[in-house]
């Protein structure tokens, strides 16, 4: 990549500024450094359970950069730390979730980690049950269409999430009704231990699009600008009223499925090395250097992120736990069940 020519820089050709490119890199680096620190804290016994996005940074950040925050709707999945960060969540928000604190912005300590939720950023709270976001995303798009708004829904899942009926029923519905929804599929070749070859009999998730008569785009998940470009193409189409698309982003999950998983049971280190050789975060850094961003600026960025993460951990660890007396909060609306039983 990035052989200097007289041509416009790639980001400019895509309508992005150099600040955009830097912002994307920063979000990718934060996602990576958060993931590494969280796994380490889990191994040290300071975080009971974590799921991280190492290797998915370009997939998540590049696609999320297309979203107009607070205008478009987002229905992500548990891997999407990078999406949440682009949409305004902070490192501290992530640790508040990991420590299940009362001030966890997603759920106040009710839901497991990485189920992002933000009324301001129009992020609909996630589900640990695979693929349930897709029909809901189609429904949000249906509501947009009925209200004649110009918003787009971005919904996310992994390769494995394209197996349940939910995915097929949602894409079919969205395609029939030309709904403004983008299905971003982060294909990291595995669903826990199940390789994509046991998940589907076509080589690409994008190939499934043909069956619904919609476009299926494939993006290089090691290249944040390519992911941006493909997602933008799909979003522009949706905004023109031409309906949904599937954007498949090819990437690789570096870490086990979650901190509870042992991936040595089902995959080799060689594959990991192969993907690390084209690491999305490294490629993002190289791109900025080739565009003349000085090395010390990038080093300062890394140091600043590291400090932010440590500060976030301290603040989140000392935040209050949910109170036992609030146990029954949020089960029903405040009035409770009329004349009903509580237990």
């Amino acid at each position, binding site marked *: 990549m990035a052989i200097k020519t007289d041509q416009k820089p790639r980001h400019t050709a895509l309508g992005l500024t150099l600040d955009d490119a830097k912002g994307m890199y920063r979000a990718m680096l934060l996602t990576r450094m958060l993931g590494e620190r969280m796994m380490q804290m889990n191994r040290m016994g300071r975080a*009971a*359970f974590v799921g991280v996005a190492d290797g998915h940074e370009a997939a998540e950040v590049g696609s999320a950069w297309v979203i107009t925050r607070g205008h478009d709707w987002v229905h992500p999945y548990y891997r999407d730390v990078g999406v949440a960060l682009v949409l305004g969540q902070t490192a501290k928000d992530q640790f508040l979730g990991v420590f*299940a*604190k*009362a001030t966890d912005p997603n*759920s106040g*300590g*009710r*839901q*497991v980690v990485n189920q992002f939720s933000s009324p301001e950023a129009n992020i609909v709270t996630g*589900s*640990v*049950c*695979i*693929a349930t976001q897709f029909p809901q995303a189609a429904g949000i798009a249906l509501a947009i269409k009925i209200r004649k708004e110009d918003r787009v829904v971005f919904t996310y899942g992994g390769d*494995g*999430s394209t*197996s*349940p*009926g939910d995915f097929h029923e949602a894409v079919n519905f969205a395609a029939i009704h030309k709904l403004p929804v983008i299905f971003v599929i982060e294909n990291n070749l595995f*669903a*826990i*231990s*199940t390789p994509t070859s*046991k*998940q*589907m009999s076509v080589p690409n998730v994008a190939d499934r699009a043909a069956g619904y008569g919609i476009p299926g785009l494939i993006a290089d998940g090691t290249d944040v600008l390519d992911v941006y470009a493909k997602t933008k193409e799909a979003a522009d189409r949706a905004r023109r009223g031409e309906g949904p698309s599937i954007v498949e982003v090819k990437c690789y999950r570096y870490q086990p499925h979650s901190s509870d998983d042992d991936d040595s*049971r*089902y995959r080799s280190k060689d594959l990991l090395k192969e993907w690390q050789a084209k690491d999305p975060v490294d490629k993002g850094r190289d791109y900025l250097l080739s565009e003349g961003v000085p090395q010390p600026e990038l080093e300062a960025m890394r140091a600043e992120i590291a400090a932010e993460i440590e500060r976030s951990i301290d603040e989140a660890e000392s935040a209050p*736990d*949910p*109170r*036992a007396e*609030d*146990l*029954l909060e949020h*089960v029903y609306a405040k009035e409770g069940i009329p004349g009903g*039983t*509580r*237990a």
Partner: protein
Amino acid sequence: MPPTRVPSSPAAVLGPAAVQETREMFYAEALNDALRLEMQRDPRVIVLGEDIAEHGGAFQVTAGLLAEFGPDRIRQTPISEIGLVGTAVGAALTGLRPVAELMYIDFSGLAIDQIVNQAAQNRFMFGGQARVPLVVRTQGGSGRGNAAQHSKSLEAWFTHVAGLKVVMPSTPADAKGLLAAAIRDDDPVMFIEHKLLYRTKGAVPTGEHLVPLGRADVKREGTDVTIVTWSRDVLLSLEAAAKLADLGIAAEVVDVRSLVPLDKEKILSSVRKTRRCLVVHEAIKRGGYGAEIAAIVAEEAFDDLDAPPRRLAGVDTPIPYAQPLELGVVPQVADIVKAARELVAG
């Protein structure tokens, strides 16, 4: 650990006088042993599920089976709960004996039509000409920080469906014996494990071991109060019974083991002896299976009771993630002790 010789559990089909070799096993290992033995014994037995092959299953119950039986019989499926259960129903209808694994009982909702409208009723709807020898193995329960979508106790859903059997073992030996019996059963069985039991240990008969469905087991004898319970709450109730003994209360702990069919007689005879009945379960109290048992006791043993039957069960809330909240929503040992004392004090 070398094999030891101890008397078999009272429920072993060998009869009261027999002894059988046992070995200390984890609950997960005991289930694995049952699957292995049944697959060796009967080539019609196959296993379907997500991440059950190389990975060995989310809780390692199918570990090593791929190597022994190959991918035809240990069938790793896509993430498709309705697909995998429906496939198993089809295979069962035409002569195989599938064991379908649902990673969490919370996902059973995705497969509910195949379980409730199909598997449970096929025998009936075909006028007895069809059978569905299917086992749906799954696990539920809280206590592992898995939160609202991975921790529910949904057994009552399935007990409400005619045509289904519902089994919930508490010990490694029962897990093995009941799973083998469920696999040999000619009707569909919901076999519900508890995620906190997989790493519990106990003596398990080696070789063939069957615990017939529909037989409760008195896990501790007592004269003052009967605690009727199942799954992990058997362990908590036994702990509570030990504490109650220190307080001078002799609690009898009846492990129902199989909710459908239910061993009414053993429950009623225990209650007639102790004259008090406490039902304990982790599932939400409202509409829980404890209500069924309390009602049976009230209907059939009312005259023998010194106090109304009482239920101790989960709070009416989804299972929260934060540990301080999670522990507060399902009965703990101290709650069982308290409820039993109150019942005895009358």
